[in-house]
């Protein structure tokens, strides 16, 4: 992307530059007025975008079909408005019907939709016969025994005694490898984001090309 030359563009990137410095002044220096100012501008503009999206999506999903003659959409529109009674104590009960529809739909869809991919196909791939190289067989056994022991760890109404003690402990250790891998990947994510900000500051300062 070329370095902006128009006034609005220049004003924009330098505003971004100082806002980034204001936010990181909290970490690099200490909490200060500039940081709190930038933080509160952020909260204001972020919620403005949520409000505009609410306005547009409601039009898109309900008002447009309603104007096309589908009067059934009056019901969800009414339930949507009833949602806002949550802020009043006297008629808050009306919002419970809207919440009930949302929770009923979400639970109704999610509960059954996850049984095949998150439970059954995980069992299937654990017991699918491995290719016959030594490494494949070792991996097959490690994943199989590890999955069984990790699931034993989540037996929650039986004390970890006897056979369950050793296996559940092995299951916990195997889970730690999983958590460690997530730990390593999360460092990649956090550093990528921070490097994105450093890159932006260098670009605005024209130290590196935009």
């Amino acid at each position, binding site marked *: 992307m070329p370095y902006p030359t128009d006034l609005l563009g220049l004003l924009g990137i330098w505003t971004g530059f100082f806002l980034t410095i204001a936010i990181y002044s909290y970490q690099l220096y200490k909490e200060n007025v500039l940081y*709190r100012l930038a933080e509160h501008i952020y909260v204001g503009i972020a919620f403005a975008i949520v*409000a505009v999206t609410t306005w547009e999506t409601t039009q898109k999903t309900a008002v447009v079909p309603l104007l096309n003659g589908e009067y059934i959409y009056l019901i969800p529109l009414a339930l949507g408005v009833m949602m806002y009674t949550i802020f009043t104590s006297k008629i808050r009960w009306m919002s419970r019907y809207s919440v009930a529809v949302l929770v009923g739909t979400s639970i109704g869809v*999610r509960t059954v939709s996850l049984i095949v991919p998150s439970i059954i196909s995980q069992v299937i791939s654990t017991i699918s016969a491995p290719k016959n190289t030594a490494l494949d067989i070792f991996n097959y056994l490690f994943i199989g025994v590890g999955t069984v022991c990790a699931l034993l760890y989540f037996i929650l109404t039986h004390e970890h005694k006897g056979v369950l003690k050793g296996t559940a402990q092995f299951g916990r250790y195997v889970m730690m490898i*999983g958590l460690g891998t997530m730990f390593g990947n999360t460092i990649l994510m956090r550093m990528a984001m921070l490097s994105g900000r450093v890159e932006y500051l260098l670009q605005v300062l024209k130290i590196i090309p935009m």
Partner: protein
Amino acid sequence: MAFIKTKGFLAVPLIIAVVMFADYFIAVKEVASLAGILRTWALVISSMALGLGVVNLVRVHGKNIYVRKPGMWIFSTVTLFTFTVVFLAGVLAKQSDLWNWPFQHVYTTLQQTMYAATGFYIVSSAYRAFRARNVDATLLLISGCVVALRNAPIGEAIWGGFSVLGDWFMDVGQLPGYRVFAMVTGFGIIAYSLRVILGSERGFYGGRRE
């Protein structure tokens, strides 16, 4: 009327969830179209519910301004002023610079900057918090560091073993743990859904569980 206010809504999740379950397991045209209508209603309600956070924001910051809360009300004014200007620009003049400029230069910068701040804390925690205090944490830190060095090209340059070991952790080592997390989450949602359907789970209505 009292029944509608205090108990009526408890039946709604049960009815909707049963329709969704039926639509998932059996192919009956009427059930499918009823499920489709309910899903579209939920889409409209959740689109409108997006604005609840906005109302909450205006209430919290409005109160700060109204009571002149020391050290807060000025910043609350900044938040509400930013919110109002950008929201009106978004609704009335979406194609103008009054909307595009703050969205592109202020919002984009602050959103990325706030999110990337965690990169700082990873570094200070690396020295002051991440301790091999027991076998669990030791396994976690070892696999975490290997995966971190596998993700970084310099790791592979230092020792080729990092990418072999790191790949093993990512392709095999972490599988039992995250497979069981997927299953356990599935079982948990199934149990949670039964409580919702039978009306014993009321947390999301903002009330105390029965």
